[in-house]
């Protein structure tokens, strides 16, 4: 799988108001002001289209940081 940097860029694109430079592997994405259930669906959609991997709401629920989500996607790709 690609480096985490591209993954972070793809995640950041799902947010309209949060500046892209605020996103790092350690970002707790669900704590961002802009976070909503609609963004959760955007993430599920983006991950399917970009990585051909199906993640579930449960995977988002158990992820705290962007790195947590990255690891889940990476594991599902193998």
């Amino acid at each position: 799988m690609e480096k985490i940097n591209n993954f972070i860029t793809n995640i950041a694109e799902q947010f309209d108001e949060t500046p892209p430079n605020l996103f790092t592997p350690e970002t707790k994405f669900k704590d961002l002001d802009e976070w909503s259930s609609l963004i959760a669906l955007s993430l599920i959609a983006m991950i399917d289209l970009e990585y051909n991997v199906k993640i579930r709401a449960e995977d988002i629920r158990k992820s705290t940081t962007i790195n947590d989500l990255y690891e889940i996607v990476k594991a599902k790709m193998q």
Partner: protein
Amino acid sequence: MRKAYIKAISYYLPEKIVTNEELVKDFPEWTVQKVANKVGIDSRHIAADDETAGDMAEKAAKKMFLEWNILPETIDFILLCTQSPDYFLPTTACVLQNRLDIPSIAGALDFNLGCSGYVYGLVLAKGLIISGAAKNILLLTSETYSKHIHPKDKGNRTIFGDAASASLISTDGFAHIGEFSLGTDGSGAQNLMVKSGGFRHPRPYNDFISDEEGFTSSDHLYMNGSAIFSFTQDKVPILVENTLLKNSLRKEDIDLFVFHQANRQMLDFLRKKIKIEEKKFYYCMADYGNTVSSSIPIALKEAITDKTISNGNKILIAGFGVGYSWGGTVISF
């Protein structure tokens, strides 16, 4: 063998319109732009307090009779798709027979489906024609989900709109109804549900919770957005593939894809996932919202009116949602 066609389509929208600007007054944390961008809906129509699905179906049928110059006495079967019927019993379609002056030799029945309902209406109507049981079927869809939705349920109030449609399915017409692919998965029942009020849970729970996770209430429409999203992600691409197979067609043979108009975000995703060009994919929700079983007939009518559909076109329609239930077919103009 007998063939079945769509011979007329009309729809009815209730008078009251709720815009995003009005919704934002009830939910100050929501911004108009956010709603419009994500779900692709600018306004939706809402049935009056004293206007039922039966009333709306009647208006849609009368509009169809007028617009297409059809006489009620030619109708020999009424099918009504609704999940918000006027009564537990009798069947709303029976009440409509009388109100629409349809002859008493006509058959009539309601069927309870949501977003897949129009496709199932077509498969039932086609079956009635092929069996020889009927020749002119009035297929009605009518839904007042607004009456199932809690006033504090921001998400569902944003997405859903009320509407009714009327189609005439006959032995001749402008669009031939092709072969069907259908599917059901009752294991997803609890993810889109009005739990109380039937005989499983007759009494209200009065248990609504509104938090960051969304809105839940056993006494109102409940939708688990991410579970429904996952369902469409799993099933709709396969539904499209199977519908093409059943009709011996390739994706390239289809001139226009008309899906159930769930919301913009979901349709954008499905379109990209299935790799359908944007110009071959019809969006029709900005002024109506998600109108459940009426969304496909409204979109078809609009696509005919704005000339997106022309003679000789093959249109793949796909409905999917509550149940879970899904179905697709190809209609050839």
